[in-house]
């Protein structure tokens, strides 16, 4: 049986990032196992939005550290050919009078306290940044210049390539069937291609994290939730210079970004469709749904009322009861470190999460405290629920 110093299950943005950070922290022999291919699970379905706007302050810290990595990706990886596909267009968020106004005000203040540059804009200034939108109803508009969007597949493969250069072994098409246990602690994994030994196993399995419950009996409070994304072709450009936009005033709490040329990528930031079994296959998007989202878009972007549907697809979130991830060790299963339940913000947080999970796996102090993200919170009731309620703003 082959032995390793650490084994990572899953090679999405999180797993690849963990592997890279393990290697950089001198973990020794590291093995990554993916059931399909690097980034082929839910990572490639990400809309790629990058922001540090969160009402949960712990997330701001992780997002801030992650942003600095995205902003300096090639240098951070030590790979001059690496690119995150970053478009630094900023992030604009607005709320009308009503229940979302106070949460927005507090979250923006929280970001400022954390040293994030945030500007409060009047309607004219917002219009200058995003001339295709109207802000008639806006009671508060926040703008975060150090934000934008990037490409999750490039990031996953970038981390994986850098990890390989540092000696990490990544095997694709390998399914982990169970954890090998000895005296109550993890000593490796059994796969469809043989067993691999390691006293440290890190699970970054996203919607497939339910495997952990199957293997250990420890409940995995995560469900697979499918969300639809539309690309609308409008009569005018949504250019790369125009910011990502979060519309807290729309029923679906829409987020939008440029999708190149006259196209807008748009999706709802609320609760999606729960799947009985985790599956990232493309789900059906009815015309009624397109019409419903289109009507919301037209409220904010009048010219897009005439838009055509260029394409549409679905992505799946690994959602926890408080829409925040579980990070760290499972106390009942020594040797196992988990990172799951990203609830739609896995990509934004992937560099920071990869670092802290690698630190935790190696027994090093973590740059960001993991206690708030502990699995224990679902038993103790100290949930990380954000001020916006359930949904991917968090």
């Amino acid at each position, binding site marked *: 049986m082959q032995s390793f110093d650490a084994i990572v299950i899953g090679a999405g943005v999180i797993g690849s990032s963990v592997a890279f950070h393990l290697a950089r922290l001198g973990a020794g022999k590291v093995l990554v196992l993916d059931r399909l291919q690097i980034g082929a699970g839910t990572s490639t379905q990400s809309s790629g939005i990058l922001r540090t706007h969160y009402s949960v302050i712990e997330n701001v810290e992780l997002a801030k550290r992650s942003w600095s990595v995205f902003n300096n990706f090639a240098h951070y990886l030590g790979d001059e050919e690496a690119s995150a596909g970053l478009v630094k267009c900023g992030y604009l968020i607005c709320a009308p009078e009503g229940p979302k106004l106070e949460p927005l005000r507090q979250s923006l203040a929280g970001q400022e306290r954390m040293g994030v540059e945030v500007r409060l804009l009047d309607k004219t200034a917002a219009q200058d940044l995003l001339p295709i939108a109207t802000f008639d109803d806006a009671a508060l508009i926040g703008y975060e210049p150090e934000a934008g969007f990037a490409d999750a597949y490039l990031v996953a493969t970038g981390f994986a390539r850098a990890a390989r250069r540092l000696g990490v072994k990544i095997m694709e098409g390998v399914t982990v069937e169970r954890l090998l246990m000895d005296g109550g602690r993890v000593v490796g994994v059994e796969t469809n291609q043989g067993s691999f030994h390691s006293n440290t196993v890190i699970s970054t399995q996203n919607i497939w994290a339910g495997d952990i419950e199957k293997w250990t009996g420890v409940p995995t409070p995560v469900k697979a939730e499918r969300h639809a994304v539309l690309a*609308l*072709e409008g009569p005018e450009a949504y250019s790369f210079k125009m910011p990502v936009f979060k519309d807290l005033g729309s029923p679906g709490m829409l987020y939008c970004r440029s999708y190149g040329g006259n196209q807008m990528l748009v999706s709802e930031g609320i609760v999606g469709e729960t*799947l009985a079994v985790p*599956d990232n*296959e*493309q*789900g*059906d*998007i*009815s*015309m*009624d749904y*397109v*019409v419903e989202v*289109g*009507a919301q878009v*037209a409220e904010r972007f009048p010219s*897009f*009322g*005439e*838009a*055509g*549907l*260029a394409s549409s*697809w*679905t992505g799946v979130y690994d959602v926890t009861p408080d829409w925040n991830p579980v990070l760290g060790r499972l106390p009942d299963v020594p040797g196992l470190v988990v990172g799951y339940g990203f609830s739609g913000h896995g990509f934004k947080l992937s560099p920071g999460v990869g670092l802290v999970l690698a630190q935790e796996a190696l027994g090093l102090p973590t740059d960001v405290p993991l206690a708030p993200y502990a699995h224990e919170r679902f038993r103790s009731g100290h949930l990380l629920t954000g001020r916006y309620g359930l949904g991917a703003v968090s």
Partner: protein
Amino acid sequence: MHVMVLVKRVVDHNVKVRVRSDGSGVDTSGLKMSINPFDEVAVEQAVRLRQAGQASRVTVVACGPAVTQDVLRLSLAMGADSAIQLDTGAGEPDGLMATEALAALVKREQVDLVLCGKQAIDDDLGDTVPMLAAWLDWPQAMSVNRIELSGTALRVDCDGDQGLERWSLTLPAVLGVDLRLCDPRAISLPNMMKAKKAPISTTRLEELAQAAAPRSSIVSCTTPPARAAGLRVPDLPQLLAHLRQVPALNPTA
């Protein structure tokens, strides 16, 4: 001239299909569904004929349960004038039964030209056009990539075994169209909104088909065997030696 376009609701081309655990067919529950891309081209062509004044009316027809109405609404949003759902309920008619009902519908609706995709991307059977033409005893053309209409004289370009074939047909006729015929338009949100409210008439398939039950059925459905791993050979002579053993490259007696 009344044009009828037959459209089918199929699993989207981006979806990797899976066989149901009991082997009774392909599992489509919850998966992304689309209009068959070949049929979408047929709808586009029909709408263009009407916009050019060569057709007076475009009716789209889909065969299946209520969910099938999704592709009919899409066709209405593209510009079709009316839509008919041939309701199959829980039954699964075979091609012969479906085309028999379609033939009756074509007669009932006084159709002059039937357009549909030359095949559907789910089963790739391509049986609808020839069967329907046979029921109606109308001329047919397959793999049509160009249409020229003048009065009741129709000239079409088709893929033939020896290359491009140019056919002359007289209406009424049935055409199976290729993807190259034209590019379907993007559907706008206002047109979707209109199509959402448009009425769709429903006719039960049994009312139009003489046959009480399908005369063919699926015996079993299985996933194709996984492709065997390739082989690495060190040099050309060994490559040739291996190729000589490949059955397909050996003359049979």
